[in-house]
């Protein structure tokens, strides 16, 4: 089993989750986060509307899903298509992290791994 965490633009979340379902994901969860990647953060007023500073607090959304290993490439590709903006993509479109998951348990039945996804 593989965990796929995609950091995407908040305005692309609806497209990304539709693509996940189409690619055969059984579920996902979403978290709104702030942070900084290649983009340099966001300008905010810190001086009462008189002075402005840059904060590493750019809003992003993380979509997390766990899938069977054979679905990994299809899901990753679906996320890329759904979250890339413009012709060739732009800085700030996001990043995808892929990692192994050792065990999955469904709380209701106690089913494990593939049966629990």
């Amino acid at each position: 089993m593989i965990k796929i965490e995609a950091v995407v633009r908040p305005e692309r979340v609806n497209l990304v989750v539709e693509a996940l379902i189409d690619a055969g994901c059984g579920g996902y969860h979403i978290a709104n986060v702030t942070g900084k990647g290649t983009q340099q953060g966001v300008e905010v007023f810190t001086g009462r509307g008189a002075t402005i500073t840059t904060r590493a607090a750019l809003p992003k959304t993380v979509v997390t899903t766990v899938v069977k290993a054979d679905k990994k490439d299809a899901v990753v590709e679906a996320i890329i298509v759904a979250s890339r903006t413009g012709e060739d993509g732009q800085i700030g479109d996001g990043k995808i992290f892929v990692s192994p998951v050792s065990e999955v348990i469904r709380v209701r039945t106690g089913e494990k791994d593939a049966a629990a996804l």
Partner: protein
Amino acid sequence: MDSGSVAWMIMASALVLFMTPGLAFFYGGLVRGKNVVSTVMYSFVSMGVVSVVWVLWGYSLAFGEGGQFIGNFDFVGFKDVSSDPADGAMLFAIFQMMFAIITPALITGAIAERFKFTTYLVFLVAWITFVYAPIAHWVWAGDGWLFELGALDFAGGTVVHINAGIAAVVAAYLVGKRRGVDRGVEPHNVPFVILGAGILWFGWFGFNAGSGLAADGLAISAFLVTNTAAAVALVVWVILGHIHTGKMSAVGAATGAVAGLVAITPASGFVGPMGAIAVGLGAGVLTFYAVRIRYKFGFDDALEVMAVHGIGGIWGALATGIFAVGGIGLVDGDAEVLGYNVVAVLATIAYSFIVTFIILKILDVIPGLGLRAEDADEDAGLDIALHGERAYVGDGAD
């Protein structure tokens, strides 16, 4: 007093009281999310403590006929303060109580996010007694020396705003810089700031249009110039902000509006509509650059009390002498009032600075008090550490 004036002054008193919770939200929105309850309480608790002090001895010290510098104890416990509308003594005392409540609350913008709350309660009592009451007596009591001199302060530019601004500098300096704010603090809730500024603006009509103590033409004129100065300073702030940063700040709009209201306060009974525009213009420009310059100084006036209320108030006092109509202002070739108001400004600055300094120094060394919250409490946030409450309970665990 006629019944119309009685009705208006009761309403005006309520309007001025409402400014204090307005200020609470104004300040509360500007701080970090972990210090919202604390910041709001600094203002709200003044409605409790100062009301009691005012009834017991504050009013008597401020408005008793005790001489040029301070009142006396004739009206302790509101003894002999008549509720007969014919002389309006109690109504005046009520109206003045609301000014006494908001003035120390203004100071708390400078000490927000780190001042120890228990010590603050003691400070409220001492400051109203030893700083506010004497200055109110000088300026507004019939036998006060600045009143007799001929200084003009219609609604409290010296007593309220310069006084609070200077005390704020002293308090910010003595309590020291907040921990971990070198990169600046982003206001945690901008709509709170706008809500608070809106309530302040609304209440300010009672503050200024009530200060003639009558429902008459002067009140109408004071209402218009109050609104006009606030409006001009608001516009000046957003434009200057845009010139310097490329963005239009809502917090800047709120700050500008308050700065305009501060500056028109002493002038509101003396200037016309065009004078109000001049007052608002000056207030907007001066306070905007005062905020920018303040960053270069070593003291952490967290919410810019000196820049907005101190500088705005000083400008308002001088502007009263410049733009007053009816042959008493500099625009009519008469510099006398301007001179008296310079004296009033300097006297207020000196007295507020020295006595606030002494009060805070004493509170700092009294065992069990001290000015500053513990470092760990400050880091955790004063809300949870000193009040056991949070502004935002987001985890759903209970």
